[in-house]
């Protein structure tokens, strides 16, 4: 269903009654019209009222040139046809369709800024329409920090094309040349007189005009941007402060019932005997529904178990507590994360598969005057958005409609179609607001659950995941073991570098038995290492998945940046050099890199390496800026230390300096953080700063406290605080962000602040205490202070 089908876009709207008594202007010559118009103005002035009254235009009274199909359906980024993105109502309201999911990154605001700027819309008239999941919008997977990058060009084009059509509409009405007309803030004026026509008045005419081809659309010069790169206030925040707005968990539809699900503790565990008498005796519990057992591959399938249906969520929760279920072990019953960690560390000690190679690392290492080796371990993590997964489904025997907090409504629709065997045309997926997501909500298993239950109970149903469900049954950030080796020459310069990384790949969730780290994951901080030594080798080691492995904010960059940037500081220490200076030396001269020239298969975040090369000058620049902001090198009080890390991810360059203060008892506080980011063209500096703060704290929270472990195949943690998140009192008191001014193509901002946070923190702890952190988490869920490893002796 396109927007004009539901009456939002006035394409071909014939419902307007022609104003037969109005002036017929179609037969006027241009000269005649202008003269008449001037006389009219004079006449009114003589009558003592010079106020211009905009005429109400009847589009049917105009002879409009014939229009063919839109030539903008396949431009860079996809379809830029204005009608797909913009609907202008008669009252001047500009409705902009946002096809990406709003989860706090302010994508409603940023998408609207791009369209409204080129459209010359009045910001006060802008409203957002959240798109359903549909291929016509192109990629809707709100993931990978790419909403702006993927859509910047085509949304500018859509706005600019719409503006040109509005200008053309005014020119037709005025019998002028479009070059004599100009759009400003929702109105078109002209160079001949002071008349204006508002967008709301022109929209119906504009909608009938030919969409211009790309070469004939003029985009604004960036210096003329009105909203792009400006600190425009969020479109969602005012509602949030009043408790308004609908998150997935807030959806309410008539006749709805409420469900929670008891799932097998192990992935692919099975449901044995079920006794539900006590559950059914709980007031408000209506019935139970057994879900089909899950089998590999996990995909986005429901996990099985037993759903309890109640007249409210609490009844369903109480009913679930009263269920007696005999769970049957599945193929992951033997998974113990502690034993598995040891296996992975052993794998990392052995030669792996070479994924990038420069020079001869083995020879370089054996010829080195000093060798350094270190092993790093990082555990499974849970995304844990504050809103746990929740989905509502309605099945009418033919059509399925779902409302859910999903990052990818198209993948949701596809999963529902595949797993429930319903024709996609009969499925509608409505994306709500997302109460945080961090990758969890790109997996629509919870929507599949809701749909399965709705088909069974013949009533609309809302499935709510409790926090325990969210922590125990997630798609976890992968566990990893890494080994780094380096050779230094007699001057302490690094000549050889070997990085071996071992982790169960996300692909194990989609392909049973898949245990080889993929090129995509290797390209998140391992094969794209920007260091400049003659011998460099990156290897991977295999590891099987025993939980569902999935994306978490910045994905493999988290453990790779932790190891690589910690190791860089370890090398500086061995060489007797300053961390920051040594880091700049490792990065080396200004140049562009393509890991593909050294044997890597490097996806570069699905961007072309020509458009988005790895530019070492931008890395060095943010290192220098962040160091200056932090006053790097200043004398620190006892127990204080500064640490630095830099990382390119999602095509952005970020350097982070963390200051820690560690008491003699090991109590750790973070007095300050300084961050410099080069994300190319930034749509909204205010919201970019917020993402820098948020991404950094997310990384620090995980590094300090985050750990998911498993015993007998089941996740051990269940709720706050056994799964711990950083709180207000643990947040830094000072946090400064500097955004590098850049005209480069826009890059990501949602994720790239996370990777450098953990190594900057670990490096700061080292500088404060002399203790090197090589295993995460640093404190853990139950700790109150640093559990310091053996004193660094190197």
């Amino acid at each position, binding site marked *: 269903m396109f927007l004009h089908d539901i009456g939002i876009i006035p394409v071909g709207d014939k419902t307007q009654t022609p104003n037969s008594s109005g002036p017929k202007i179609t037969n006027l010559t241009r000269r005649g019209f202008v003269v008449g118009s001037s006389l009219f103005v004079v006449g009114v002035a003589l009558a003592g009222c010079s106020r211009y009254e905009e005429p109400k235009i009847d589009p049917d009274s105009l002879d409009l040139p014939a229009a063919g199909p839109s030539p903008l359906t396949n431009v860079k980024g996809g379809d830029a046809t204005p009608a797909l993105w913009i609907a202008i109502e008669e009252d001047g309201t500009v409705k902009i369709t946002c096809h990406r999911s709003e989860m*706090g*990154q*302010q994508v409603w605001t940023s998408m609207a800024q791009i369209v409204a700027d080129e459209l010359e819309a009045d910001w006060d008239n802008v409203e957002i329409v959240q798109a359903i999941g549909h291929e016509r919008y192109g990629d809707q997977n709100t993931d990978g920090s790419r909403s702006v990058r993927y859509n910047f060009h085509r949304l500018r084009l859509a706005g600019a094309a719409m503006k040109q059509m509005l200008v053309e509409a005014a020119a037709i009405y005025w019998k002028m040349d479009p070059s004599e007309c100009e759009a400003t803030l929702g109105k078109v004026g002209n160079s001949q007189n002071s008349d204006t026509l508002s967008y709301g008045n022109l929209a119906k005419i504009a909608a009938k005009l030919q969409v211009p081809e790309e070469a004939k659309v003029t985009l604004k010069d960036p210096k003329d941007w009105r909203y792009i790169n400006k600190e425009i*206030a*969020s479109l*969602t*925040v*005012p*509602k*949030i*402060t*009043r*408790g308004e707005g*609908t*998150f997935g*968990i*807030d959806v*309410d539809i008539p006749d709805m019932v*409420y469900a929670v699900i008891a799932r097998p503790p192990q992935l692919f565990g099975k449901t044995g005997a079920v006794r539900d008498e006590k559950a059914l005796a*709980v*007031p408000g519990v209506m019935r139970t529904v057994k879900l089909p057992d899950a089998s590999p591959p996990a995909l986005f399938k429901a996990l099985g178990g037993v759903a309890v249906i109640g007249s*409210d*969520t*609490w*009844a369903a*929760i*109480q009913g679930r507590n009263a269920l007696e279920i005999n769970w049957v072990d599945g193929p992951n019953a033997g998974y113990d994360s502690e034993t598995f960690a040891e296996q992975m560390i052993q794998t990392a000690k052995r030669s792996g598969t070479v994924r990038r190679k420069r020079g001869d690392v083995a020879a370089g290492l054996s010829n080195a005057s000093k060798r350094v080796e270190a092993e790093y371990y990082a555990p499974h993590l849970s995304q*844990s*958005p*504050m*809103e*746990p997964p929740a989905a509502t489904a309605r099945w009418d025997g033919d059509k399925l409609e779902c409302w859910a907090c999903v990052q990818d409504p198209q993948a949701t629709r596809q999963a529902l179609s595949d797993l429930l065997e319903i024709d996609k045309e009969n499925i509608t997926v409505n994306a709500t*607001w*997302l*109460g*945080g*997501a961090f990758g969890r909500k790109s997996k629509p298993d919870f929507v599949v659950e809701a749909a399965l239950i709705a088909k069974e109970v013949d009533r609309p149903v809302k499935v*709510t995941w*409790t*926090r325990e469900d969210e922590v125990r049954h997630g798609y976890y950030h992968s566990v990893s073991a890494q080994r780094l080796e380096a050779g230094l020459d007699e001057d302490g310069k690094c000549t050889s570098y070997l990085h071996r990384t071992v982790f169960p790949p996300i692909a194990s969730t989609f392909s049973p038995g898949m245990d080889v780290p993929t090129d995509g994951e290797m390209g998140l901080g391992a094969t794209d290492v920007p260091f400049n030594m003659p011998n460099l080798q990156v290897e991977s080691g295999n590891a099987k998945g025993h939980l569902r492995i999935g994306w978490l904010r910045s994905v493999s960059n988290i453990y790779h940046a932790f190891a690589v940037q910690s190791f860089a500081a370890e090398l500086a220490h061995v060489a007797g050099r300053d961390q920051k200076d040594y880091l700049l030396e490792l990065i080396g001269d200004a140049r562009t890199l393509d890991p593909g020239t050294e044997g890597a298969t490097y996806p570069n975040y699905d961007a072309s390496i020509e458009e988005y090369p790895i530019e070492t000058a931008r890395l060095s620049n943010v290192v220098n800026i962040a160091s200056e902001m932090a006053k790097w090198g200043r004398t620190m009080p006892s127990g204080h230390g500064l640490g630095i890390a830099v990382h390119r991810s999602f095509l952005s360059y970020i350097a982070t300096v963390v200051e820690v203060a560690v008491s003699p008892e090991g109590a750790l506080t973070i007095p300050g953080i300084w961050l410099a980011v080069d994300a190319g063209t930034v749509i909204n500096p*205010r*919201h970019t700063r*917020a993402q820098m*703060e*948020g991404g*950094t*704290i*997310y990384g620090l*929270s995980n590094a300090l406290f985050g750990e998911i472990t498993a015993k007998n195949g089941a996740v051990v943690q269940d*709720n*706050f605080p056994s799964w711990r*998140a*950083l*709180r*207000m*009192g643990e*947040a*830094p*008191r000072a*946090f400064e962000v500097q955004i590098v001014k850049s005209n480069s193509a826009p890059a990501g901002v949602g994720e790239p602040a996370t990777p450098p946070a953990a190594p900057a923190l670990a490096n700061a702890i080292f500088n404060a205490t002399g203790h090197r952190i090589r295993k995460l988490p640093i404190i853990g869920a139950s700790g109150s202070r640093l559990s310091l490893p053996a004193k660094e002796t190197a």
Partner: protein
Amino acid sequence: MATTLNINGKDETVEAAAGTPLLWVLRDHLKMTGTKFGCGIAQCGACTVHVDDTPTRACITPHDSLAGSKITTIEGVAGGAADAIRSTWIKNDVPQCGYCQSGQIMAATALLEENSNPSDDDIDAAMSGNICRCATYMSIRRAIKEAAKEL
């Protein structure tokens, strides 16, 4: 079991099982979804409401223990402190995803009603029960201080 609750100055009669937490009565029975579910065990603060002006976790408070109490939720919180908090929240774009922010605003409003000039330590003490995974903590701290100046 019918219970009459005074919510945002209005009497509401609800039929819910004995012991049902206020959170689910608000959300599922009264369709007041501004108050959020985060953990169910009073660990995250997303469900914070005011009961007789005191910040209270609705997820562990049986609704039938509240007859005769004055319950205030995000939809109804008003007055000098609430107005100042809302205004500085908007001015600073404090929320990101916004899910925890009902609870944050209720906690911050209660703090300002008690203490019109909170220090960093006061803010930490009052707000550490409210988890924000988007990490709006620094913005919250700035906005509370600005709101205190507006009072």
